[in-house]
């Protein structure tokens, strides 16, 4: 992690939970900042420039979904939702609005910290590595250490998570990845978790890297199995 403690912005209106989160996060070597009102969340985000955001979905002021969209509009900073609802609609809505991952209340502190660390994992790939996938007439070039994705000479802005997902697929272009494998490699889940995470993020990734997201050429679906990178 380095000497500098990772900064965490906790957006939660429950003061007891926020305080407890503060204790747990400080114990685990994070530097937490707090905001309890959704409408002030974006301002606090700009001020603290956190490395990761913990976002409650039910907030006074601006809803968690809207805060998530606002942050995502200007930054790729990892966002982890704290949600009391495990209903499909809410989870998918949160993920679609840009959250990278979610934990369902009541979570164990270890679980939360593991999720945060997975998102904060630094890629120490100093070795120059470039990958090319997609159709020959419009290939997608990935410069791994520089965290850059180019197509037709234009740079595509991906969040770190989307970048990780694309790199995971592109490193083994012929291999089909099941959702479970992707969950382990990209999200860091040991046990099978919610495969909706993969589905939603593949959709988001496609909307950025594909020419036509309805007819994907870069990230292909293998029916009944999972996903694979399009041939270079």
């Amino acid at each position, binding site marked *: 992690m380095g000497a500098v403690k990772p900064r965490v912005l906790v957006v939660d209106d429950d003061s007891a*939970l926020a305080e*407890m989160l503060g204790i*747990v996060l400080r114990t685990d070597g994070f530097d937490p900042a707090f905001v309890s009102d959704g409408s002030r969340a974006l301002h606090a985000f700009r001020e603290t420039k956190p490395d990761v955001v913990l976002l409650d979905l039910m907030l006074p002021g601006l809803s968690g979904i809207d805060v998530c969209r606002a942050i995502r509009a200007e930054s790729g900073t990892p966002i982890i939702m704290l949600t009391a609802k495990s209903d499909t609609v809410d989870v998918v809505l949160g993920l679609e609005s840009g959250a990278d991952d979610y934990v369902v209340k*009541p979570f164990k502190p270890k679980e939360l910290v593991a999720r945060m660390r997975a998102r904060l994992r630094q890629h120490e790939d100093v070795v120059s590595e470039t990958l090319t996938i997609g159709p020959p007439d419009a290939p997608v070039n990935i410069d791994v250490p520089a965290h850059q994705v180019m197509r037709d000479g234009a740079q595509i802005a991906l969040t770190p998570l989307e970048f990780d997902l694309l790199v995971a697929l592109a490193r083994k272009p012929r291999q089909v990845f099941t959702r479970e494998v992707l969950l382990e490699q990209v999200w860091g889940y040991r046990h099978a978790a919610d495969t909706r995470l993969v589905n939603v993020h593949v959709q988001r990734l496609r909307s950025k890297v594909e020419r036509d997201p309805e007819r994907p050429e870069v990230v292909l679906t293998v029916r009944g199995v999972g996903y694979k990178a399009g041939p270079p």
Partner: protein
Amino acid sequence: MTVVRPRPESDTDRDAPGASLADSGTPGLRERGAAALHATGQRLTGVGGWLISRWRRSLQLRVAATTLLVCGIVVLIVGIFIVDQVSNGILRAKRDAAVRQATVGLAYARSVFAPTDVQDVSSMVEARQKLLTTQTAGGRGAGLFSIVVKSPESPGSNDMTVIPTSLRSVVQRDNLAVQYGSVNIGPEAVPVHGLIVGAPVQASNGLVELYYLFPLTAEAQTIALLQRTVLLGGLGLVLLVVAIALLVTRQVVRPVRVAAQTAGRLAAGDLSQRISVRGSDDIARLGRSFNDMAGSLQRQIRRLEDLSRLQRRFTSDVSHELRTPLTTIRMASELLHGARDDFGPELARSAELLRAELDRFEALLTDLLEISRYDAGVASLESETADLRGLVTSTVEASAMLAERHGSEIVVQAPNGPVSVEMDSRRVERILRNLVGNALDHGEGRPVVVTIGYDDDAVAVTVRDYGVGLRPGEAGLVFNRFWRGDPSRSRMTGGTGLGLAISLEDARLHDGWLQAWGERGYGAQFRLTLPRRSGHTLLSSPLALRPDDRDEQ
């Protein structure tokens, strides 16, 4: 030991699939048979069948047909009687008039024929002509058309008209006689129905038979007209009565039909259905009572619905609201638990208990929320084609720790290849986890056998334990919420008591079956059967619910 009887919704009996097969197969067969019959005998039976079915279904048709029949018979009898009476009257009057006319002219006829020689044809013709002119000159009377003169002494008579011999023989015996017969009239001598009055007249040298011919043309026309009139009138009357019957039954039947339709829609769940009521007659009273009943039903059902909705909302809200403080408590307990080495033994144990019980509390909360979601009817299936074998393997692997704690071994009997099923993996995994956990919990350290079976339409997983088993009647109860087999037994997993109830709902959501078998002392077996394609109706399961080793009983 007897086979454990199922409760209806969780058919435990292994014959249940067969029974449901027979049930759903019979209407199909019947339908197909009916279709074949319909195709071959369509022309023959089509109209008849339609009529029969209409006859059975329509009260109006039955009333109209009965009215038509009865009224038709009555009108026919009355019509025949009227026509008969009137015709007889007409003919009698004609006959009387004819006889009178003939009698009146008889004196004159005697004077005319008295000097005539029977043998002299010309004088006979002359006398006849004279008589005819005088008799028909009146213009009135019985419509005498012609007179025929015959004499027994002159067989070669002047007239072509054939007089019936029976009449002639009477007249020749010097009697006045009347008879119906055909008479020739007009230049074409067309024979028409007529009346012949015969009278004997004495000529100078013998008997002369005078026959007065009265054609009945006018009377026949009158009678025909009468017949037509009566027929048409009768027909009209019958139709009128049938129409009235139709109208009257319609007035009664229509509200009844409307009531039946409305009741049908009410029964189908549209509680806002009402009958429009006009007036204050019996039918209107029926309608009003019906509407009152529907209104009362609607109010009752609304109240019940509101109540249960409120209750479900409440359960769901409570579960959600509990989660945030529970998260705080959980984190605090984890922190305490992590630092328990620094505490004294009592505080350290308290921290451990706190954490363990929080786990249980959380599991219960999760299950409550899940059940409330089912009760609210908002649970939805996210089906995807996946490998059941893989799911079973991962579930068994995840249960390894629990198995170790119970000292049980989990044996998996699976086919070699993958078994693809369209299913919601999350829910099926939960079912399997619950079944395996349950088997370990009651398996008393003996092995737990998980078997996968499949055929073209369905897949099945059985989880068998060799523990205490179930008492008769318990196989149906195990899926009840918070049901405990033996309250005195301690439970190591500390299940919430909702696991099997949720599993049953999960299976039902897949249109699948979750059934239990158990015998005291021989363990228990749970069987999950799922259709391979979603929406497919299960008819049988690839695996038997009753395990093979208990089959010989």
